[in-house]
């Protein structure tokens, strides 16, 4: 009896500890970034925006097993929604712009989810690629709204809470981004541990078994796609607010593929993995492209091959495995 109560209480405590560690890690990393790269806050803010995209991708790919190479459709839709709200409708409050991004991303998530989830495996992948090209082409053609290939400009967000200007050095945008990331991280930690999160993990492994329990994998996954769209949309909105332009590249196949690479690099199916993959990939890319403009792509490729071969569960996944094995040995 005693032993049972121990195991019962052990688990929730452990995950709360991990929540707190995660929050602390984000805050410490953000502060470190601020101290180490005070002149390059724009890069750090972009890392946060992309981290939101990769987290969003992790929700459908890592937690639900959906194969997609078109996830930037959700991110780009959020960016354009926020940008269009500001440039065409005068909605320049950064919080309202973020809300527009959430809505734009969620709607794109619903559309992509309904279409992508009709297929499985390779056909699913092809559908996702077709979708990102369609979204890209649509944004390109609707140039009176999106600025087409010139990009959407004329976005000038108001001061945050009416008092913090989005300054030239990008301090406000960075702090805003860190808070958005923290809020999303906390909410997603709740989500992945909830009954809904369990349902998603079950669907990833065996959707037929979930059906035999009376739950609908289809409806569950579409809900997850909408949530994923909202998260990616926040990332897109943050990018629009901080750079004050939205380009077609935010809605590109390349961006989608890179997001997947970052997720695999960090480790799928864990929020920490998504964050770690984004930070490592983007800092490494930034560093080697400056250090060696001719061979940086080769180095990025070599890094990826190295990680995939030596740490197939990704940087975080492999590290976590090693640590748990150590801990188990000790007890």
């Amino acid at each position, binding site marked *: 009896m005693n032993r049972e109560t121990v195991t019962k209480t052990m688990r929730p405590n452990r995950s709360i500890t991990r929540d707190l560690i995660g929050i602390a890690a984000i805050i410490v990393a953000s502060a470190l970034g601020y101290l180490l790269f005070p002149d390059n806050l724009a890069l750090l803010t972009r890392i946060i925006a992309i981290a939101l995209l990769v987290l969003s991708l992790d929700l459908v790919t890592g937690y639900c097993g959906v194969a997609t190479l078109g996830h930037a459709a959700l991110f780009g839709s959020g960016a354009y929604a926020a940008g269009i709200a500001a440039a065409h409708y005068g909605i320049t409050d950064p919080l309202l712009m973020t809300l527009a991004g959430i809505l734009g991303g969620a709607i794109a998530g619903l559309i992509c989810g309904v279409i992508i989830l009709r297929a499985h495996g390779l056909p699913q992948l092809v559908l996702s690629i077709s979708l990102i090209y369609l979204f890209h082409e649509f944004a390109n053609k609707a140039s009176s709204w999106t600025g087409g290939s010139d990009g959407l400009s004329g976005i000038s967000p108001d001061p945050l809470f009416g008092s913090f200007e989005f300054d030239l050095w990008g301090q406000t945008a960075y702090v805003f981004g860190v808070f958005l990331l923290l809020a999303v991280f906390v909410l997603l930690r709740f989500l992945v541990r*909830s009954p*809904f999160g369990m*349902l998603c993990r079950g669907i990833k492994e065996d959707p037929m078994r979930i059906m035999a*329990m009376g739950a609908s994998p289809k409806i569950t996954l579409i809900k997850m796609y909408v949530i994923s769209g909202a998260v990616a949309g926040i990332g897109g909105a943050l990018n629009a607010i901080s750079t004050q332009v939205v380009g077609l590249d935010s809605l590109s196949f390349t961006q989608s593929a890179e997001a997947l690479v970052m997720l695999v690099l960090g480790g799928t199916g864990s929020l920490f993995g998504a964050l770690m993959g984004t930070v490592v990939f983007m800092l490494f890319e930034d560093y080697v492209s400056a250090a060696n403009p001719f061979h940086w792509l080769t180095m990025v490729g070599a890094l990826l091959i190295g990680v995939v071969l030596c740490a197939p569960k990704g940087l975080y996944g492999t590290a976590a495995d090693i640590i748990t094995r150590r801990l188990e040995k000790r007890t």
Partner: protein
Amino acid sequence: MSAVFDVLNLKKAFSGLTVTNDVSLSMAPGDRVALIGPNGAGKTTFVNLVTGSLQPVSGEVRLNGQTVTKINAIGRVRRGLVRSFQVTRLFQEMTPAEHVALAILQRDGRAGKMFGNFLSMPEVLDEASGLLAKLGLADLMHRKVSEIAYGQQRLLEIAMALALKPKVLLLDEPAAGVPQSDTGRIEQALADLPSDLAVLMIEHDMDLVFRFAKRVIVLAAGTIIFDGSPADVTKDAAVREAYLGSYANASHAA
């Protein structure tokens, strides 16, 4: 008592081979039926057909008098028709507690909840631990399924079906792969089921069949060749013929 589960003239063929041939049966609340038959007789196919995993060529399935033949597998589960799988289908990365809790939450329409964790829902956790304890899985409830023995996975498969509190329960060889020492737990769990639940159990272990069932149905080559009392089944000539050279002889010899 009126029937809770009716199957009428069910037919199914796989590429010309008839696997379910005009099968009809009816069960009332509280029935304890064993479905037996040689390997390949079509027992699992029958379960797949009535639960909606497979589409029959013709025939009808009714739950509580309502025709469900056009309702999908999910809808049939929600109407109280639950099965377990002959080969366990569990989520390797999840714990037994998570499996059973998910089933309980789904049953109560709460599996879509996006906040909270079942570990902090006392009523869910208590029910899940109670059920797992009954099947001897209490000590393993927070282990990953991939770390527990196959026999225990079989027991978890049953626990999940029970957690859904069905009206009609179809168990596909629940004791297959369970060590002899643990089959008693299955029997106990079955004995503790609500008395108005209709249970159909596919089983090869004749001792278990005789202890459990008040009625035995024998399926051979897709056709019901016997439907009657356990006392009569061993005397039936057609049944003996169907089993000739098969495990029935072996178990009689043992």
